[in-house]
């Protein structure tokens, strides 16, 4: 009963309600600007909130978080430039919809699905946080490794007519991810430049994957579209934005599945909404037998899956944050810092010592999603108009935003240079029909795959056969392995032929 009291504060305290609402609003619009990300917004906000009380500070942060994760989908749909890594998969089907003049509808669907995912994630956080945390904690390095391998297999579904080009692109991402100092042994890998120079220092730290994303998606998209700035933009229909009940119910089973997937992937420390959304997209592609529109050309299922998953991952990421004091992603890492500054102790004692804040956060996440449902429908007409702006005005603006976005990650000019380099690389890739999304997938997954493989092997004494034995004797690992083998077999040529043969008969 007490808990309900604390949760209701999110709704009843007008000041907190205001902070939350403003947070969601700002989050949506910051997230929607290509180059600006929710992580950046949260890290800017944190220094403001030092002097505030605990709850208003939390309200604003949660608001920004919820709004920002959703907001990333807007620029993905309208401009083919994901506002955040978690929206990479959204662009795959969202942008084709916008090109058909259906941007308004696509945005409407993402709002509803984001809210749905957000609610499911929050419910799991409220009901089962300690239990989920336990499962997440038992997730061994070998399991992370297998999960990452599974992630890498998604290359096949990231929209390309030529799988070989997708693999090339993913390999590029993996290579870029290798650059820098090996955190386990301290060895330098692919680090160029004279020792002590700022270029060398930058490479030591590794290339920030958000920089790569802004370059490959933002900058390169602007460059490619500038090749022919006279193309008449598509007129957008924005009369039927809110999706009907029928539409929501139709995709409900898929949204629930991908939301659960998103929550769990979000709850694993070290994986967040970006991986969750990509895996959900893949799941949708496999489980949807006959989409009305093929995936990659504007399938609603693709939008539904990744948008519900990345917002569900918010609730998931809060589970290790609140119960273990370990961040589930970059934003929760910043929130943990803020909580300590405010005298809270996120971790195993949080539910006991500061149950008021714990339950307030859950309440705020529910209310924040209600705000998202309302505010998410604002400005759609305005945003859809953006697409209708002549390209020779819009694209230079996007280039400026990409520069600003890259600079603001670490206030480092070096990030801008790298972003421009990746922009040009992305331009060339697009010119020669190499998909850029697999490169992002590679760079996101490389640490997960490599470090955990090494951990897994070291744990069993450095023997590969022992690792195999270890995988076969643990149920979770065995399950993941089975899924991987299944994915491989089902996409192999022989199996496909068999299936087609069976159908013909």
């Amino acid at each position, binding site marked *: 009963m007490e808990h309900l009291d604390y949760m209701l504060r999110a709704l009843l305290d007008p000041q907190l309600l205001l902070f939350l609402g403003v947070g969601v609003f700002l989050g949506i619009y910051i997230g929607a600007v290509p180059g600006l990300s929710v992580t950046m917004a949260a890290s800017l906000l944190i220094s403001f909130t030092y002097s505030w009380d605990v709850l208003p500070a939390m309200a604003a942060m949660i608001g920004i978080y919820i709004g920002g994760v959703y907001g990333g989908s807007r620029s993905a749909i309208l401009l083919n430039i994901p506002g955040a890594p978690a929206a990479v998969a959204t662009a795959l089907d969202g942008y084709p919809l916008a090109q058909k003049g259906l941007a308004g509808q696509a945005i409407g669907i993402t709002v509803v699905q984001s809210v749905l995912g957000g609610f499911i994630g929050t419910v799991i956080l409220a009901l089962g946080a300690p239990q989920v945390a336990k499962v997440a904690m038992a997730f061994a390095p070998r399991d992370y490794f297998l999960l990452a391998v599974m992630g890498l297999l998604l290359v096949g579904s990231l929209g390309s007519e030529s799988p070989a080009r997708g693999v090339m692109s993913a390999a590029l991402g993996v290579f870029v991810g290798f650059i820098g100092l090996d955190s386990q042994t301290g060895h330098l890998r692919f680090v160029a430049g004279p020792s002590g120079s700022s270029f060398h220092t930058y490479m030591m730290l590794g290339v920030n994957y958000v920089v790569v994303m802004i370059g490959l998606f933002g900058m390169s998209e602007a460059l490619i579209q500038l090749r022919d700035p006279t193309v008449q933009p598509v007129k957008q229909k924005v009369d039927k934005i809110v999706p009907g009940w029928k539409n929501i119910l139709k995709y409900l089973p898929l949204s629930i599945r991908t939301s659960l997937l998103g929550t769990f992937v979000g709850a694993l420390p070290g994986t967040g909404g970006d991986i969750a959304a990509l895996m959900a997209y893949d799941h949708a592609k496999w489980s949807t037998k006959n989409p009305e529109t093929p995936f990659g050309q504007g399938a609603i299922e693709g939008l539904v899956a990744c948008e519900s998953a990345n917002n569900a991952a918010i609730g998931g990421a809060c589970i290790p944050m609140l119960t273990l*004091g370990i961040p589930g992603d970059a934003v929760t890492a910043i929130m943990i810092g803020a909580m300590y*500054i405010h005298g809270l102790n996120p971790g195993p004692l949080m539910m006991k010592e500061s149950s008021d804040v714990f339950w307030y956060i859950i309440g705020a996440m529910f209310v924040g999603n209600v705000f998202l449902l309302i505010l998410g429908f604002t400005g759609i007409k305005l945003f859809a108009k953006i697409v209708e702006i002549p390209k020779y005005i819009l694209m230079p603006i996007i280039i400026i935003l990409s520069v600003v976005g890259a600079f603001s990650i670490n*206030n480092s000019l070096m990030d801008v240079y790298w972003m421009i380099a990746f922009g040009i690389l992305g331009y060339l890739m697009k010119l020669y029909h190499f998909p850029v999304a697999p490169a992002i997938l590679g760079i996101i997954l490389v640490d997960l795959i490599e470090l955990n493989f090494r951990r897994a092997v070291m*744990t069993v004494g450095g023997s590969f056969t022992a690792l195999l034995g270890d995988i076969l004797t643990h149920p979770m690992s065995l399950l993941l392995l089975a899924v991987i083998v299944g994915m491989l077999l089902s996409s192999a040529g022989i199996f496909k032929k068999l299936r087609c043969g069976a159908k013909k008969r």
Partner: protein
Amino acid sequence: MKHLKRVFTACVCVCVLAAALTGCSSTGTTPSAKEDSYPSKDIQGSIMWSAGGVCDITARSIGAAAQELLGTDIVFTNRAGSGGAVSTTYVNAQSADGYELLFGAENPQIAKVMGTAEIDYDDFTPIILYCTTYAAVSVSKDSPYQTLEELMDAILAKPQEVVMATTGAGGLPEVCASMFADVVGIDPIIVPFDGENECMTAIMGGNADYTITSLGSASSFYASGDIRILGMLAQDPVAGYEDVPSVQDAYPGFSKYLPWGPFYGVFVKNGTDQAVVDKLTEVFAQAAEDPDFLELIASKGCFPLGLSGEEAAAYLQKYRSVTSWLLFDSGAAQVSPEEFGIAKP
């Protein structure tokens, strides 16, 4: 016509880009600081470790108190990686004008012998060393090992099976593992995780058998009963952890290393104007008395240190000498401290 338009667009594009770049770079160059007006703009703070860890949290807390006193903002950026070398290299590459602070931990003091970097705190002037803590040996509450001796005996008996979670080369857990290797004679299997918090989850989730971390990372799980602390790398019982035995009780050989523990401090690059150093030292000494800050470090299992000037320099020297030689003698470091002129303790 179409062609003209394209050329025009390209021109606009280039101009805009150039403008954006020069606009950005003008913030990169800094005018030399006038000591009487210091600080006249925002101060940048580089944190040696990632968000949410002890170094990050304590740095932001003392920074929050200091910026009130300075009347200017401290803009924090986490520059984690390479056992601290990423942040030291970064700050060392900036100008010594007092607008680039380094919020760091003990790690750079072993960077030279470990070969992770060519610079350590010799290249920096300490403003304050604000707190210290101890290292603690932890196991999960479900662990079969009830005492430190039981754990060590198990490692000696089956060295291929008892796994230790660490934070990678040069991190505190591996330094402590070297001490145990020297004193007890174990040759532990180590598995590096991303940070001390991840080491804690690894032992609680059953993915490693034990870990040695700073007390701050273990404190809340100890309080909640999820882990047991088998031994503390301290000479005397630590306040709040009176029932945890010192490692010296079972292994008297540790007396030559103790007292030893991680510390956290604020630094500027060598060559910073003395007036600026004095001003910062005065401000941070006052910030270290801030009640909120003291409460925060206590909750993270840390104890106030409050050293500056000569005292801080002597403390840094002693730590480097003890730890560098320890790592070299145990074989963890390949390069002799003598090569860098580090005297034997």
